[in-house]
């Protein structure tokens, strides 16, 4: 009988002993594996735990204008941090902190509460871009409020009031989408990169290379020691072709009206000024932009974030007639053409009006010159019909319509130049001859950007030399920068000399009495150009909409050059809903005037003209008796284009 005194099976007890032995051997093996076999790996991991790479932020390069005036630079910006791994009672201190940092205490407490589930070694950003006195508050309360700390970053300082905002662009933190693209593979999350404009286009140059500092940290993320350091490479500065004085003039000329102004040197393509309205404040993006503000900007119907100089493609209206005129002259049709403008004409069964009817008069007999300076629609309808869309498209495309200009700014649009192939490719329909009529006065499917128009008209005025517009000179850039586009720097479009004269003289007539913009006349300046007034919707549609149709006002255009042939500057102005070309003309005239006045002030202008110069001089000379004698003389010297030292010895002097 099995009684309480019978022993437990000895075998089983021994079995348990062996079982325990096996367990311990497994554990010993586990230790062996970690501490002997893989000890190097774990030693390394231990290092990684305790050594942290802290980036030393590189300051971004400044942006200057062509004369070296600083437009964009950096300023040191401090953010206030709340460290949460200290033993302080944060609730007790929160009122003091809120007061010192000028924060709403309730909001601040809510913010702290939001982060309560995050690991304690992560600090919270209480306030960005703190002021000097807030910084002083933190520094002076290091003992009483040790949980406060600051961190410094360089922030971009852009001109106020959205000056040059679209051209310069703004910076932001690199997004996840961007990091996935191949050209961004060397960037890290948290890097600040250019997001639009010059900041984006030349980000490679402007952005420096962050250095790093290796620091010893504990698990709270607190630095407890320092190891070594690699210095940061600051970004290089970028010199633009823009002239700040001209930019100011252009911004003032456009004022608050929606639209764009762009000024370019047609000899080399340098952009001298670029304005777009409405504008925005890029400084808002420097410090984190609020979601509401961003939504507001993006959803605004006037598109403040759009650089209208290169991204607005609209019907050019009568400015197109210049290109058509060149086409007509080169094809030999327009020279001897005479048309009678009685206020309109019929083509293909439809009656097309001339704008002059609104002023209750007619143009009468019109030749090519009058047609330009009086902007007669009937003449150009006729010319357009005779040329046909094929030839119109050929010349327009040669002057760059329907293609990007190759300007070194991101997201330029190409505009539209319709043609038979274009219509078949995009709409699978044949071109109707009646559509040529609309195109011939710059309406219909034609769409241009202000920069395109400036380049085209500048090319015509220069006798057919079209340039590639740019905001930064290739010579100012380091050699390894990839060129922005493969549009050639200079393109030659042949224009006969006689035709060139006819067109440019007629353009000069536009801003003189008898032209369409006499109020833009500039005294003593050889100013020429062309007005344009482009409808945004068709007349038929306008009639249908009735009263609401009145809201669709025409856009006003003007492209001007100075001087009329081989100009030094071409300016294009677009006034959205400006209605009248002559208003745009006045805007351009203001810019041209500012340009000319600045040129006149330049001390470096070398006198051209006759090859002689009159020089008068007074000098001291001892006569044979040893007395000082004052002599004077008047000389005429030939001037050569070589540099001549002005201090030439007067005759008789060594």
């Amino acid at each position, binding site marked *: *009988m*099995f009684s*309480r*005194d*019978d*022993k*437990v*099976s*000895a075998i*089983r*007890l021994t079995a*348990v*002993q062996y079982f*325990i*032995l096996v*367990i*311990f051997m*497994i*554990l*010993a093996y*586990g*230790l*062996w*594996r*970690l*501490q*002997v076999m*893989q*000890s190097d*790996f*774990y*030693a390394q*991991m*231990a290092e990684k*735990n*305790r050594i942290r790479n802290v980036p030393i932020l590189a300051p971004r390069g400044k942006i200057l204008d062509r004369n070296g005036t600083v437009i964009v630079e950096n300023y040191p910006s401090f953010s206030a941090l709340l460290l949460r791994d200290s*033993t302080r009672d944060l609730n007790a201190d929160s009122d003091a902190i809120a007061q010192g940092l000028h924060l709403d205490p309730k909001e601040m407490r809510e913010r702290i509460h939001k982060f309560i589930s995050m*690991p304690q070694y992560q600090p919270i950003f209480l306030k960005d871009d703190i002021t000097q006195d807030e910084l002083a508050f933190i520094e002076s309360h290091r003992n009483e409020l040790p949980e406060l700390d600051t961190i410094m970053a360089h922030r971009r300082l852009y001109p106020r009031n959205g000056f040059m905002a679209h051209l310069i662009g703004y910076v932001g933190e690199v997004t996840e989408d961007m990091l996935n693209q191949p050209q961004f593979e060397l960037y890290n999350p948290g890097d600040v990169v250019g997001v639009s404009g010059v900041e984006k286009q030349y980000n490679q140059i402007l952005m420096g290379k962050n250095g790093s500092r290796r620091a010893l*940290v*504990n*698990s*709270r993320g607190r630095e*407890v020691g320092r190891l070594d350091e690699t210095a940061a490479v600051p970004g290089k500065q970028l010199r633009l072709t823009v002239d700040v004085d001209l930019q100011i003039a252009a911004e003032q000329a456009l004022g608050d009206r929606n639209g764009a102004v762009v000024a370019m040197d047609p000899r080399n393509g340098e952009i001298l000024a670029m304005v777009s309205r409405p504008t925005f404040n890029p400084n808002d993006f420097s410090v984190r932009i609020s979601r509401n503000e961003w939504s507001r900007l993006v959803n605004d119907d006037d598109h403040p974030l759009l650089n209208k100089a290169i991204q607005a493609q609209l019907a050019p209206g009568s400015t197109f007639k210049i290109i058509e005129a060149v086409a007509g002259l080169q094809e030999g049709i327009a020279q001897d053409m005479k048309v009678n403008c009685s206020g309109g004409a019929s083509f293909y069964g439809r009656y097309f009006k001339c704008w002059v009817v609104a002023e209750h008069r007619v143009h009468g007999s019109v030749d090519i010159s009058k047609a330009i300076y009086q902007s007669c629609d009937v003449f150009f309808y006729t010319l357009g019909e005779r040329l046909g869309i094929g030839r119109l498209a050929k010349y327009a495309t040669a002057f760059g319509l329907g293609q990007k200009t190759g300007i070194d700014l991101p997201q330029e649009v190409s505009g539209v130049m319709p043609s038979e192939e274009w219509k078949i490719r995009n709409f699978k329909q044949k071109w109707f001859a009646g559509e040529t009529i609309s195109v011939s006065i710059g309406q219909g499917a034609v769409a241009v950007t202000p920069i395109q128009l400036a380049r085209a008209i500048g090319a015509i005025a220069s006798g057919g030399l079209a340039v590639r517009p740019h905001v930064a000179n290739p010579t100012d850039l380091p050699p390894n920068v990839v060129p922005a586009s493969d549009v050639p720097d200079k393109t030659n479009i042949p224009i006969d000399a006689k035709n060139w004269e006819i067109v440019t003289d007629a353009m000069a007539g536009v801003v003189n009495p008898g032209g369409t913009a006499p109020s833009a006349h500039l005294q003593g300046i050889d100013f020429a150009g062309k007005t344009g007034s482009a409808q945004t919707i068709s007349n038929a549609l306008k009639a249908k909409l009735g009263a609401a149709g009145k809201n669709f006002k025409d856009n006003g255009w003007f492209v001007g050059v100075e001087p009329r042939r081989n100009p030094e500057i071409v300016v294009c102005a677009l006034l959205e809903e400006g209605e009248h070309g002559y208003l745009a003309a006045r805007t351009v005239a203001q810019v041209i005037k500012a340009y000319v006045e600045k040129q006149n002030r330049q001390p470096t202008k070398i006198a051209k003209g006759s090859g002689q110069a009159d020089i008068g001089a007074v000098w001291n000379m001892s006569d044979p008796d040893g007395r000082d004698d004052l002599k004077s003389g008047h000389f005429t010297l030939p001037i050569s284009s070589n540099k001549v030292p002005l201090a030439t010895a007067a005759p008789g002097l060594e």
Partner: protein
Amino acid sequence: MSRYVSYRDFDWLLLMFVLIICGLGVMEIHSATMHTKFAGAHIRQLYWIGGGIVGMFLVSLLNYQALLDKIHWIYIAAVASLMAVLIFGTKYLGARRWIKIGGNHFQPSEWVKLILILGVAKYFADSRHRELTPSDFVKAGALVGIPMLMVLAQPDLGTALTYVPIAVMGIFLGGLQWRQGLAVVLLVVLGIGVVFFTPHVHILKSYQKQRLTSFIEPEADKQGSGYQVIQSLIAVGSGGLWGGTGTQTHLSYLPVPQTDFIFAAFAEEHGFVGALGVLLLYFIVLMRLTQNAQTAPDRAGTFLVMGVVAVLSFHVLVNVGMVVGFMPVTGIPLPLMSYGGSSVLFMFLALGMVMNVRMRRFVN
């Protein structure tokens, strides 16, 4: 029964080894908490050890057989106390484990363990069969299972699991047969399947499930459940053969180094040699305990001592296993080394019971 009990039969050798382990523990606690807010914990641990030693001597004076006779009442009291925790217990960190009595916190689940050891010992001691019958199985299972489920409901998975080895040891020594053993294994596998793989069954909360499985692939959740495992591996591994500078412990990378991960802290500072040494010490203690079981005067004594062996080995297996990445993180402390009053007290009381048995081995 002749009361021929003398302190010469006290297992001084065992006590010596136990105290060596405790001493190493105190040393490590001191080193790990030196610069943290827990500094001074090693002093408190010394107080616990002191108290434990006193308790041990007191318990060894009792006659364990008399205790076993009363075990039914004590068991009921134990279950009642667990019930009281579930009903009246104070919630702390999301679990109800303590009862507040007059300003002190008591954690019943710890000394219920002791009672269970006694209860299982009594049950099998009184058993009339050499082999385990199904009814034995069920009854022993219920004996342990009911308190276990109550602890699980607190919820305290870790402590609940420590009741299992008591039952397993009892069943094994009580005459488990091969066939029955296979059946048990099958049941366990089924249980794991139900708990982890059935979509809508929620016996374990999802965070508990995650804790149990994250040790397999700790990198999957580096900052969350995998963090402790990874840090432990790093600490241990970087200790190398002879020990390192203890950076992981001292820079606070190793979590709770004075309690659950004390072995990792020790391994980091003393390397493979030191860690293996500690394992050896535990092994010696367990073997010595088993020897005491073999020389026990009756079945009950054997079961009692082996119950203590079961609990101790389970703790060491799970804790050290967790530290080296073989086991999930369960919050089970390393007995005698981890800082913590209840664990230290339990061990010394259990040792007292063992001394109790050993000292009476020549009786009858």
